[in-house]
């Protein structure tokens, strides 16, 4: 009797365990990204066959994210971690990965995808670099996702990983990737066309967040509110910048949503330039809810400001 009850217990336990295992196996691939831009691209490729969560919010400075234990729980369950790389997350991602207890997302594992490896990276420093130049990124500027061409490369890389993890879903991911690439090609043509009349427009940005964006749309970034990357504005630098802007007739100041507007506004007052809060990331403002809407929002903002100020 006793042993029978034991056997029933054991059998039911095994049954529950097996069912839970098979549910797990059929469940969606769990993708964690460091930023919302990568999450948006992963969502385009993975569709409803994956779940995607971003660690950083789009309106948050991605250099300074806190390594909260709640992120450890997310990484613990992840099948795939996609990061921006180029040392953008160096201040917070390594301890999260280390404490995740998840062998799949450790550095170099199959579930660790550094999205920057194939992308076109700008501003890779040459020769000797020191921190006298501020918080420079020795591996190049990590804000490379702001070029649709790089988004295509990232999309293909994400597709490769997803298809490797779920070979049965390969056709599904492939059709989604192709659809994404087609829509992005169309959108990119439209965006480049929209910006064509404003080629060469001069502007100033707070941080070096927009080199790839400027390159793609032919904009001319002539200065930065930060004297050096990661160094807050100084009065002397601000004064020099105002003089330069007056000389070159620069009428636009772009500020990322996570920077203080005090200095940019005073620059705007002194030069008559328009100060734009321009999100470099999906989710930076409510309207920029996916990768396409981010460019729609940013380019419309820019064009309206150019028209208003006659910056061109």
């Amino acid at each position, binding site marked *: 009797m006793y042993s029978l009850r034991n056997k029933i217990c054991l059998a039911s336990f095994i049954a529950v365990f097996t069912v839970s295992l098979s549910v797990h196996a059929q469940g969606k691939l769990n993708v964690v990204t460091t930023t919302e831009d990568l999450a948006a691209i992963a969502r385009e490729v993975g569709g409803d066959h994956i779940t995607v969560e971003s660690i950083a*919010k789009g*309106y*948050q*400075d991605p250099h*300074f*994210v*806190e*390594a*909260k*234990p*709640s992120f*450890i*729980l997310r990484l*613990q369950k992840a099948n795939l971690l996609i990061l921006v790389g180029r*040392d953008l997350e*160096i*201040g*917070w*991602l*390594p*301890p999260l*990965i*280390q*404490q*995740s*207890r*998840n*062998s799949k997302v*450790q*550095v*170099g*594992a199959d579930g660790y995808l550094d999205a920057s490896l194939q992308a076109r990276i700008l501003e890779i420093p040459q020769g000797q670099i020191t*921190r006298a130049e*501020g*918080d420079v990124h020795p591996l190049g500027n990590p804000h490379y996702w702001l070029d649709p061409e790089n988004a295509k490369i990232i999309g293909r890389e994400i597709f490769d990983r997803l298809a490797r993890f779920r070979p049965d879903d390969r056709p599904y991911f492939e059709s989604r990737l192709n659809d994404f690439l087609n829509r992005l090609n169309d959108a990119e043509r439209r965006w480049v066309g929209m910006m064509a009349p404003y080629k060469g427009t001069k502007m100033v940005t707070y941080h070096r967040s927009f080199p790839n964006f400027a390159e793609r749309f032919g904009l001319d970034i002539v200065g930065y509110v930060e004297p050096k990357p*990661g*160094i*807050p504005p100084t009065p002397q630098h601000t004064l020099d910048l105002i003089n330069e802007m007056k000389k070159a007739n620069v009428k636009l100041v772009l500020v990322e*949503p*996570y*920077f*203080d507007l005090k200095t940019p506004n005073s620059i705007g007052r002194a030069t008559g330039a328009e100060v734009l809060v321009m999100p470099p990331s999906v989710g930076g403002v409510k309207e920029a809810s996916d990768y396409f809407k981010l460019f729609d929002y940013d380019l419309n903002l820019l064009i309206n400001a150019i028209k208003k100020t006659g910056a061109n």
Partner: protein
Amino acid sequence: MKLHTLPLLLVFVITLVSEGYAQTSTVAEIDALRAQIDALKADYDQRLQALERRFAALQSQAQPAPATQTPTAAPPQTAEVPAGAQGAGGPTGPLPVYGGAAAGSKIFNPDIAVIGDFLGAAGSNKVNPEPALTMHESEAAFQAIVDPYARADFFFSFGEQGVTLEEGYLTFPAVPGGLLVRAGKMRAAFGKVNTLHNHVLPWTDRPLVTRNLVGGEDGIDDAGFSVARLIPNPWIFLEATGQVFRGDSSDVFRSTKRGDLSYVGHLRGYQDITESTNIDLGISYARGHNASGIVDDRDLGQFRTTLYGTDATVRWRPLRRSIYHSFVGRSEFVWSRRGQPNGIQSALGYYFSGDYQFARRWFAGIRYDRSKRADDALLTDKGQSAVLTYWPSEFSQLRGQYRRTQYANGPTANEFLMQLQFSIGAHGAHPF
């Protein structure tokens, strides 16, 4: 006869044909051919010279080195023993230069960082005086991934007295069973302050409770094993840590034989309240032999110390302005039960602190301390501090602290403490 005439005939015919051809060709074509031949000749000359040089180099290696070397030889991968250093039994002549040929091999060097901690003190303190100026600590950190299974972290502390290994451990981040395993010398997971290195504290010093009950600056820092596991539950982040140490930690634990180990346990719960606010709670336990019963390196008394601790941290950091504003409120309570020849000393200590970042580079904080002493629970020390910190950049900070301490056995100390911290090398992650 026929055999001899055939090649002759052939040459004659070729000459005739070529002559005829030459007559029809232009001067330019001849020049072009000549140039081609010259180029070929030059090419062969170069190759021949290169071969000769290589042959000579091989010969010179096989035989004793000749008095003169050809200036065209590749830069030698050797270094000479410096002048004046010859003799004394050391090596002579050329020395090999390892790794000089392949700068790429340095890619596997660990991340290296050095953090300087320069302290100044003014005012009076008769009980625990610190020097006016001191290069308190230079911490050297070496960190790298060892292999696909482990990473290693070393922290050497260079002080005025010498060098100590503050921490040096191997971490296995992906052991089956969801465990995080560490082996080596490490700061024990007792509370919060005990786990933190000097340079990440929001003060120039450590609270009185740490000094009186948890081993002061070095704290519980010992050689041993650590196993930590996340406890799955649908509500909060919950982590349990168990550690076994040799049993030697500053003045808290002292071990005289192999069986006298010390044990530390910690349970941590964490929950996000909003995206900007979170709460972090912990309870800790530690037990080991203490020094009060040790006579001539033999633990005659077999007295033990047991520590119980609770810690609570509230953090606030608005994500949109995360680099400009933040607040951390923290408190730790520690209860020490120390067995001694004169009976068990039961001492309680605690601190409350708050640190507010009011601008990108500026932080202000206060701390209230109160602690009995581990070896004499009748003595109670109290302290109050106000701290102001300025960050020129992420890599340096300047801090001033006013500290008032009411000692149980001496006059009240009023001090102004100054700290300059600076870091070079790899950009380490910020602890949370």
